[in-house]
């Protein structure tokens, strides 16, 4: 019943003050808070691993094994993070990696590399990855084919091409220098892990500290607004798929080193592993938000999980069922912690 007429201008200033976030909230709202769910998941996995498998699990060599396993899919996932952040998807990463491994380990390439430098194999792998990424980018950005389909086509096509080129044979890497490099250690840590770390750090910097990253987030958030703000959306999309292709090329080099063989079957289903790691990490599948730290944590969670399973001698089928449940839990954890503080926007 109260219909008072009240005017109090004094309140206007006060409310502004109250709205500045506290230091604690700022930290929690930052990358730590966003990734807290993942860190918890990882810690829980480590605890489970240590309890169930004891010293065998909590051992430096075992950690290196986990990291080595993570490194190849990790590099691919960094590229995938950019693609997904920009609102796209790349299903071809695994098969492009296979193709690059095949081309780089061709007898002719290896012969040329022996005569010149092992770096030739590196260059070839990167070039193949870049070329495939370029094709993806052109078809998606300029041909306007939806990314899912364009890269699905590339997935099928690149695998076929790899089979044609290799004659479906596994090509053995014989170049000593190449193997010496890719299988070497640095400060007691395998070079593959260093490469992953390097790519992750570079990716983090690129995404968070450069105009390239800003454009990526902007396009994923609202492509039309970005275009109207003067961003060259098509060219940027092209360069993002190119980037993903290059990470596939890097992964191919790592795979060649790790398996000493190039084959068209390398990288089968890596696209799903990479997407899973990226999304579990907290990058939005619809684009507009991406986190490299989250992706790295996502990759580590999956490879630690595999390791814990193996340590405990779990039946493959039981593993699969458990993995299904754990994926859901990980996503839930990640989502709960990421939105906490950002509150429920919708009731």
């Amino acid at each position, binding site marked *: *019943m*109260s*219909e*008072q*007429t*009240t*005017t*109090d*201008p004094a*309140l*206007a200033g006060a*409310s*502004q003050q*109250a*709205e*500045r*976030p506290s230091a604690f909230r700022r930290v929690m709202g930052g990358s730590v808070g966003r990734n807290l769910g993942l860190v918890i998941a990882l810690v829980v996995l480590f605890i489970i691993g240590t309890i169930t498998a004891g010293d065998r699990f909590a051992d430096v060599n075992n950690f290196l094994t986990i990291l080595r396993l993570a490194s190849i899919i990790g590099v691919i996932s960094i590229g995938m993070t950019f693609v997904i952040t920009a609102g796209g998807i790349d299903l071809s990463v695994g098969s492009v990696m296979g193709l690059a491994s095949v081309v780089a380990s061709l007898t002719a390439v290896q012969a040329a590399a022996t005569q010149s430098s092992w770096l030739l194999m590196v260059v070839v792998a990167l070039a193949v990855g870049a070329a495939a990424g370029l094709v993806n980018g052109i078809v998606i950005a300029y041909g306007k084919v939806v990314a899912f389909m364009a890269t699905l086509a590339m997935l099928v096509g690149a695998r076929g091409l790899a089979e044609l080129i290799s004659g479906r044979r596994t090509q053995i890497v014989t170049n000593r220098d190449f193997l010496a490099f890719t299988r070497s250690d640095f400060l007691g840590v395998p070079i593959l892990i260093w490469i992953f770390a390097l790519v992750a750090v570079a990716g983090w910097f690129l995404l968070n*500290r*450069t*105009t*390239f*990253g*800003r454009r990526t*987030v*902007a396009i994923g*958030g*609202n492509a*039309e*607004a*970005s*275009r*109207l*703000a*003067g*961003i*060259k959306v098509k060219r940027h999309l092209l360069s993002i798929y190119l980037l993903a292709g290059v990470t596939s090329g890097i992964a191919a080099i790592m795979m060649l080193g790790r398996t000493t063989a190039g084959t068209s079957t390398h990288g089968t289903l890596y696209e799903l592993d990479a997407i899973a790691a990226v999304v579990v990490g907290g990058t939005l599948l619809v684009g*507009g*938000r991406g986190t490299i730290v989250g992706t790295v944590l996502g990759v580590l969670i999956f490879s630690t999980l595999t390791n814990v399973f193996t340590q405990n001698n779990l039946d493959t089928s039981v593993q699969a069922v458990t993995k299904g449940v754990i994926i859901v839990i990980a996503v839930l954890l990640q989502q709960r912690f990421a939105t906490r*503080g*950002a*509150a429920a*926007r*919708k*009731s």
Partner: protein
Amino acid sequence: MINDDHVALLEVRGITKAFAGVQALKGVNLTVRRGEVHCVLGQNGAGKSTLIKTLSGVHAPDAGEIVWQGEEITISHPIAALDLGIATMYQELDVVDGLTIAENIFLGHERSTGGMLRVGEANRLTRELLSRLGHGDIPPTTEVGQLSAANKQIVSMARALSRDTKLIIMDEPSAVLDSGEVKNLFRVIRDLTAQGIAVVYISHRLEEIRQIGDRISVIKDGRSTASGLSVADTSTPELIRLMTGRDVANVFPPASPIAVNAPVLLEVDDLSLRGAFSSVSFTVRAGEIVGLAGLVGSGRSEILETIFGARKATSGTVSVAGRTLPAGSVDAAVRAGMGFSPEERKSQGLLLDEPLFKNVTLSTFGRFARGGVLNERAERDAAREQIAALELRPGDPDRPARTLSGGNQQKILLARWLVHGTTVLLLDEPTRGVDVGARAEIYTLVRRLAAAGTAIVVVSSEIEEVLGLSDRVLVIGDGEVLTTTNASDIDEPGVLDLVLKGSAA
């Protein structure tokens, strides 16, 4: 008008609602009687939309009571509100682009038998509803995605009417409408109130309140500062003081004379876009403001978008400072010093989940970078400067754009091009949804920019605004320039005359 003073239709007491970090409502009271038009006023971000969302079941209030026809209730879901007889036209267009008009209108209460649609009936009813709204010419089977913002608003309206309602809440329905449409809207509202249906009406155009409103409630910073004032007894300056806590002169700043030798910065020559407009030619000199007046759907937005390169012209050229721009290239336009604030800020302008400052620097972040490496501190500083200049609220540069009120979101777009420092600025509906205070600020700002030598083109559905703000006016009808004249040589009826004659011809 039915008056039932004893039991109000709706009574809201002490509603509070907090979002993360913002106390949007701090205690709001509202009493709505049957058959009245109750206006809710408040500055951008005052909490008007939040209030109505607690009434329509979108948000659950943290505290307070809602009494509906004498009974205390809770509204937990939009369905509950609809069942009570509360229909809402939201500020953000809440239609589904992929469905037809009829499907949108009957979404959620489809005409059906055992789950099977009676399409014919829905279309017939839709045609009736549209006719009632004065738009019997729009086929009910048109996909809503094809409609202009104004027509989407009509669909929203028809949807509210399609239900058996006792109260219709309209959150800034007139923002996307031109004067003809607004008149039409008022006719419908009077129709409704005559049947005893109450209307809660939100608008930033105070003259509309005078025309249609019965009583007024004012919200300021999430608190009721006035409830149930009678429109007739409250003066406009008093309303403004209730809303803003200060006095605002609601006049257009005087135009400063344009130097005789001012260079032509923008030249549009014989520009056409098939299906939208043809043969548009005009020039804008440094310091000049040119307005495009016309009815909704006359193609003004397309003209601006084509000048900016967001659409590729079928023929004709656009030159900035004498250099012809390639057709259909936004980034060439931006590089040449052109800026564009689009009409639909959500879909065309903002990164809703990104912090305010990144939205402000969206077209300039490269400038704050060295060797591709961003300098967020500099960006934040630049944004903060504009936030202060435009009185953007809340002013935290790290707050996501999504959490700002509509009017403040509009200011972000202006801030973007202010940071950019354009020589040619295209503004499409720059004051849509902006409150009186901010509106005056924007006018002053636009004038100041012009005085500093910027060439400006303004599109607005408020003819008064176009005339008041511009030096020169192009009257557009059906994609053609009907007249080009000095703003001082024409008045609102004159423009409407021209337009109606033009479309009748």
